């Protein structure tokens, strides 16, 4: 027995025959079955069959708690959607593990939300999603900001009188707050500069808080929707910001182009 795994929604690409056009010849989440289309009017849900042995509700809810399984299948899901993105753009990516028992339900889904999906596809035409994360290397930033001020209070020791200790402690705290305010000013400025070249932006969760090289923390994580014609400038501005701010420990990291996960419509 099999279920139907949904990857993404695309419009017909072949206007003369009114069909989906090229469907990448890749296997789906279950290595035994390939991708195919379930059409409704000019929309198509790209799906593949998946075995119930692995992709049933009970099996799946156990499986996703296995970190290795999740890592492997998350990457696979993304790669399949990206292989579609290579030949069909725009597309609407589905959330991980959107699975139905019958194709009929998927047709109904497309029918019910037809205008929402077509509006979204029209809006996303000639646009791409990029992720931009801002990292700060704390000690570099602190050194740049107020080295002398900070050093003055570095000499705290246990022989200090209670009053000295408290004053120094207070001063240190003020410096800390000042640093945080500086970082916050910087990331707001960075966001407003790069937003100029994007149509829309969405804040993302900052899961990747600790970077691999120690001492760096993530202070901002946004996804931007960018028109193709502005993409070069968008990336160039980021490069310039990196050049200008690297000496104070600020670093911008881009990823993309992504399927427009952050700019897909919400449906009920």
């Amino acid at each position, binding site marked *: 027995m099999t279920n139907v795994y949904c990857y993404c929604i695309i419009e017909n690409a072949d206007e003369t025959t009114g069909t989906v056009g090229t469907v990448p010849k890749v296997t789906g989440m279950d290595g035994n079955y390939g991708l195919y289309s379930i059409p409704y009017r000019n929309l198509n849900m790209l799906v593949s069959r998946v075995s119930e042995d692995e992709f049933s509700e009970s099996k799946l809810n156990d499986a996703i708690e296995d970190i290795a399984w999740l890592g492997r299948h998350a990457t696979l899901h993304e790669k399949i959607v990206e292989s579609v993105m290579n030949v069909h753009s725009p597309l609407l990516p589905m959330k991980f593990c959107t699975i139905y028992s019958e194709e009929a339900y998927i047709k109904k889904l497309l029918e019910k939300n037809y205008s929402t999906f077509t509006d979204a596809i029209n809006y996303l035409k000639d646009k791409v999603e990029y992720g931009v994360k801002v990292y700060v290397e704390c000690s570099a930033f602190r050194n740049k900001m107020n080295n002398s001020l900070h050093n003055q209070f570095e000499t705290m020791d246990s022989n200090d009188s209670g009053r000295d200790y408290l004053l120094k402690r207070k001063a240190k705290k003020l410096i800390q707050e000042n640093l945080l305010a500086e970082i916050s000013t910087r990331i707001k400025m960075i966001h407003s500069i790069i937003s100029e070249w994007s149509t829309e932006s969405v804040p993302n969760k900052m899961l*990747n808080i600790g970077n691999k090289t120690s001492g760096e923390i993530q202070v901002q994580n946004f996804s931007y929707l960018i028109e193709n014609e502005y993409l070069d400038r968008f990336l160039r501005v980021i490069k310039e910001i990196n050049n200008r701010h690297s000496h104070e420990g600020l670093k911008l990291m881009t990823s993309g182009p992504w399927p427009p996960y952050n700019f897909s419509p919400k449906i009920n």
Partner: protein
Amino acid sequence: MQTQRTITHATESSTLADVLERILDKGIVIAGDIKIKLVDIELLTIQIRLLIASVEKAKEMGMDWWVTNPELSSKKDKNEVESLKKRVEELEILNSERVIKSKEKIPLI
């Protein structure tokens, strides 16, 4: 006609964290009874974080990124800062009273 573009894949410039924060949380989310129900993702991320603490293998995969939740930790920090602030103030008042007292005593000695 669809123009064919060469796309550098997002997966080449990203980490598994980038992928997970998108595919688990974003994209088109269908609610309803007909489809297979997955456990709540928010819950899942928490579970992953707990798991990660003990799963060395995850680190080998480069999945060591949920060590701290910024939302939780910043809140905690704020509370900590607040309580520390209060304590410092209390101590300062106490200390200054002591200083005044000791100053008053000086002429007597």
